[in-house]
């Protein structure tokens, strides 16, 4: 699987005096599922809009396909769902889909057939003939995914597909995306790490218009796995003083102090555990919780985003 579907190089966008995207580069493999992760305002939407060809980039290069053939009709081979998809509310769901399909170059009969297929796929066949003005938020989001798929694109780009949905709608969309894995290449943006972990193999983490981290999820998990000791104590002066003193221990790499406890990134778990337990027993600290584990991607996410 070294089949590149999309590669972008030094992509930059200036809007007036601000630069929401500052020279990012990454590649998408055919058939992969990539999450574009980042806090609000990291430049995810701007990046996707540039990739969808809606706004021109200031600098940098976007290349579709593996070869040098820069085909003109690549737009017909991508499907795009904006963060807040807006449809012509006077159309019915079915009409909108076949209108979109025809715009992407399908013939009339094909368009109707494909529309029927995708409307079934997203579970809107009951509402197919109703006007879009009467659709709920979740139905609109599913119609949005349907329109992104109707012309059988190679790559679909979804901007925050689940952020605006309630838990049930979110579940439905995530299941739908899970089913699509492998059939089409998926690039979706989200600010929820959990969503990315659930269905994606790769992720690109953006912070302030730059790529802070990228790679496959398992790689990142290994890279950022660090032994962590969580200690929680009864509130008391002696306890607090003891927690404060922990930072100077040789095996403590980093410490995060809370009100009633501390989180220690340690270099040597075995040594740290033995030493600390002994110390706790000797000094009679009123211990509530003592837990040994490893840091999660969530910790990594928080660390990279807040640094």
């Amino acid at each position, binding site marked *: 699987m070294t089949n590149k579907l999309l590669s972008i190089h030094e992509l930059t966008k200036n809007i007036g005096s601000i630069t929401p995207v500052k020279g990012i580069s990454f590649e998408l493999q055919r058939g992969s599922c990539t999450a574009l992760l980042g806090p609000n305002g990291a430049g995810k939407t701007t990046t996707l809009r540039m990739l*969808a*060809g*809606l*706004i*021109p980039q200031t600098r940098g290069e976007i290349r579709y396909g593996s070869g040098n053939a820069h085909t*003109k*009709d690549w*737009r*017909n081979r*991508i499907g*795009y769902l*904006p963060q*807040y*998809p*807006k*449809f*012509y509310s*006077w*159309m019915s769901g079915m009409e909108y889909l076949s*209108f*979109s399909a*025809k*715009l*992407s170059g399908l013939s009339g009969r094909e368009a109707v057939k494909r529309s029927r297929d995708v409307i079934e796929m997203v579970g809107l066949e009951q509402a197919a003939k109703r006007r879009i003005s009467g659709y709920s938020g979740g139905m609109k989001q599913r119609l*949005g995914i349907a*329109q992104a798929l109707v012309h059988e694109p190679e790559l679909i780009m979804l901007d925050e597909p689940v952020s605006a949905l309630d838990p049930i709608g979110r579940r439905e969309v995530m299941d739908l995306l899970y089913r699509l894995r492998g059939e089409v290449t998926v690039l979706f943006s989200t600010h929820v790490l959990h969503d990315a972990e659930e269905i994606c193999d790769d992720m690109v983490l953006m912070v302030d218009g730059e790529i802070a981290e990228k790679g496959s999820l398992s790689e990142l998990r290994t890279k950022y796995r660090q032994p962590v000791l969580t200690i929680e104590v009864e509130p008391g002066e002696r306890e607090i003083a003891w927690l404060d003193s922990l930072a100077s221990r040789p095996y403590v790499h980093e410490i995060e102090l809370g009100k009633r406890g501390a989180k220690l990134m340690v270099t040597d778990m075995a040594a740290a555990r033995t030493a600390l337990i002994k110390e706790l027993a000797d000094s009679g600290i009123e211990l509530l919780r003592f837990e040994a584990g490893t840091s999660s991607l969530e910790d990594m996410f928080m660390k990279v985003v807040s640094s």
Partner: protein
Amino acid sequence: MKSFWIYYQKEMTEASRTYKWIWVPAIFLLLGIMQPVSTYYLPEILSMAGEVPPEAAALFTVPSAESVMASTLGQFNIIGLLVLVLAGMNTVAGERSTGTAELVLARSVSTIPMMTAKWAAMITLMVVSFALGLGGAAYYTYQLIGPLDWAAVTGGAGLYAVWLAWIVTLLLPLGAILRGPAAAFISLAVAGALSLLSSLLPSHVQWSPGRLGGMAAEQILGSGSISWSPILVAILIMAVSIIVAARLLRRSPLSPQS
């Protein structure tokens, strides 16, 4: 070309589902019929009101068929133009402000077919409504007042259609940068300013498309000759408007609010 038809079909369906195909022709028809009918019955209306001495009512003469038709154009010039501009102000501006343009433009390489289709749909609505209105006026004028020179009426109608068309076309580029009401206001203001200018300084602005309205009325009255420069300028304005609108929409498909 294919995408032109897809967009055109969409625009036409939209216009009929939002009832534009009912209220715009209806207003034109009403305006067109009212003029000859009210002119014809004016003496009776006045005498029914009972406050006009019969001598004064007798002084009132029914104007010629040609002048009734010419004043019908005057009716279209105020309310008709307003209706057309209001009906068309959101064709581009609406797509930007509601955000529907984002999904559509992600699918199309060129915005020219889309813009041309929007223009064609607006012009279709305009031509049909105007023809209906003027046809109604001509029918009642013929029935109530007297025969008309059909060639002159057709010629005048053609000129007047060009006058309406270029003002309506201004809505496309204006809508690509402004919100709907602002676009409507500016295009009406431009129309008003140009026609005022050509009646104040007729010799200085021979080429001004603002003359088209007046020329159309003169044509129906059987006086005056057609000069081609305003027509050419109007056509040029339309072509440039469409191209500029397509460019602008490509550059900023979303209004900043969305």
